[in-house]
């Protein structure tokens, strides 16, 4: 094995790589870097950037019930929920304020997993750089709310699964409600 | 020859004298070594100037100059080795701080 043969073999590896980089397609070893702002690599569906809240139809009937589970679960503790109360102080199942500090959020997606009401999901929007860390990167409720259609087109599979599940729950509830209303008609009165 | 011999000799004499002044005045051994290099170079300039002006053998002057240059390199090597050894033992290379033969 003469002195330079290791070096020469290494050199030919890079030469081959250099020469074929002009012909190979990106996926089989070609140039996979793209010119970022103009061309973009399509994001995979399960790409997690920052959490957002989903509403159906209008931003008023949002799914979040301010149950505070996600705030408790969040490892860096960057979610802050205040439960709304109606005029005489009884708590409502809606958040009065829901802020996420995006500069602290580490995109782990725990909130999405633990949310029982399918209201918080991970977004694909990662270009949120801003001048001021405190005012602009702390997202309040209005900035966090996004429609279900948006959720469907960025993560179609998950969104459809969630919608199907909600629809079934809807029917089951309607069925149950219907049954609860019907028994007064045909069931013999229970012996008291 | 465009430069008259006299001018070059005066130039070499000036260099020589500056070298001598340097060796007499400097406290630092390496400073003295630098001045000695000056003196050797002044001698070289004279050698080349004379070899050029007499028509005997033009190459002799330059041969001697080459020998002087190589010897100067050798002296510089050994001189600096001594300086380093001195610095390691005495922590100083100022001549007037080690003027005792035995201490």
């Amino acid at each position: 094995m003469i002195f330079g043969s290791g070096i020469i073999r290494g050199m030919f590896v890079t030469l081959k790589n250099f020469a074929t980089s002009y012909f190979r397609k990106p996926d089989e070893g070609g140039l996979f870097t793209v010119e970022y702002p103009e061309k973009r690599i399509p994001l995979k569906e399960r790409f997690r950037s920052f959490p957002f809240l989903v509403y159906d139809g209008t931003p008023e009937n949002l799914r979040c019930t301010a149950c505070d589970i996600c705030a408790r679960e969040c490892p860096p503790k960057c979610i802050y929920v205040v439960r709304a109360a109606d005029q005489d102080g009884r708590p409502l199942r809606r958040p009065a304020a829901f802020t996420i500090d995006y500069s602290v959020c580490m995109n782990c997606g725990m909130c999405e997993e633990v949310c029982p009401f399918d209201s918080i999901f991970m977004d694909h929007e990662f270009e949120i750089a801003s001048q001021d860390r405190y005012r602009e990167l702390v997202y309040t409720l209005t900035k966090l709310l996004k429609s279900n259609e948006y959720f469907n087109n960025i993560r179609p599979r998950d969104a459809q699964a969630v919608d199907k599940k909600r629809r079934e729950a809807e029917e089951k509830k309607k069925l149950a409600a219907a049954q609860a209303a019907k028994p007064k008609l045909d069931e013999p009165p229970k012996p008291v | 020859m465009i430069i008259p011999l006299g001018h070059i000799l005066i130039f070499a004499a000036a260099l020589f004298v500056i070298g001598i002044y340097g060796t007499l005045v400097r406290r630092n051994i390496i400073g003295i070594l630098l001045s000695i290099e000056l003196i050797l170079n002044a001698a070289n300039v004279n050698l080349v100037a004379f070899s050029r002006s007499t028509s005997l053998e033009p190459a002799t002057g330059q041969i001697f100059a080459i020998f002087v240059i190589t010897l100067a390199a050798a002296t510089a090597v050994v001189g600096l080795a001594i300086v380093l050894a001195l610095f390691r033992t005495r922590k100083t290379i100022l001549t007037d701080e080690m003027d005792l033969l035995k201490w």
Partner: protein
Amino acid sequence: MEYLDQLFVFAKRLMLDLLARFLPDWIVLVASMVISIVAILIFAPLTMMYLTLLERKVVGRIQNRIGPNRVGKFGLLQPIADGIKMLTKEDIVPFQADPVLHFLAPVIIVMPALLIFAVIPFGRGMTAVDLNIGILYFIAVSSISTIAIFMASWGSRNKFSLLGGMRTVAQMISYEVPMVLSVVPVILVAETLSTNAIIEAQSAGWFVWTPWGLAGFLIFFLCAVAECNRSPFDIPEAESEIVAGFHTEYSGIKFALFYMAEFISVFAVSALAVTLFLGGWKGPWLPSWLWFLLKAYALIGVMFWFRGTLPRFRVDQLMGLAWKFLLPLALINIFVVGFWYFSPGLWKWVGSLGILGPSFWIFTKLNRSYVPENRVYRLAEDENNETVGA
């Protein structure tokens, strides 16, 4: 073809005739010197700028990325953007630094890089000044840059730059010796030191096709890469170990000068390698200066190729290669060229290959880096010393 080949020579003569009409004749000759100087001063920075771009493109392609292509059509304006950035950046002089040394170092490091161009034959009749001690001039001038590196490292009063400076000078000195010795065979065969005559001597056949020529070329090229502190030998500017070697404390225009000196000496040294071993501007069809540029850029391409492939040498491997491999091989090479010069016909090839081959093999054997074959593992023993968890 003759016109294309002598394009620049005719252009210069045209300009001089224009001047000769209304200027006294000695000014015309001064003008001829000034024209070649100005030509070099335009050519050198231009090559430097576009070598930086070429390097980033080539190394990028090797690593499956495109390299700069935002500024200008294919990134062609990138060097200008770099230049402007370098010029506008603030030039910080460290507080403890020695202002004289810190300022003079970049100036003195660019000087030898440009001075070498005076001796390079760019084409037929296109040497700036035909010194009859051409090669000695090149070696002498390229040894001045060690002083500049000392000034840079000592002047910036910073441990990293001093370390880098010491390493650079040690490397440049130990690679200058084999470089000078690898040039000696060419001088012996061409019987002259002047670069033009060396190219004439190669009109029969390039020196690189002879065994001693090939060995000499490889030694010269490796030492040239080391002399410019490039790719496998770039210990002094090793970003990982010592921040940026001797030019850590430099920014703005001074750093640009260091950067320029490195790339100009890359071109100058590969131009010399072409002149000495690859027949300079000799070549069948294309005009002479195009041949010269093609060969020089091919060698520079190889340097960039090195950069894209080879990892950095350790300091002891670096010194070991110079003193224990290149130097003995260069000495043997001088002996072989003597043998080649005086032996007739086929004996030339048999004899020289017979000497060079085995000596190459012997030196590789001697330089086998010591790696113990079976590594002895001593596992932790407890008191009654059977191995824990064996």
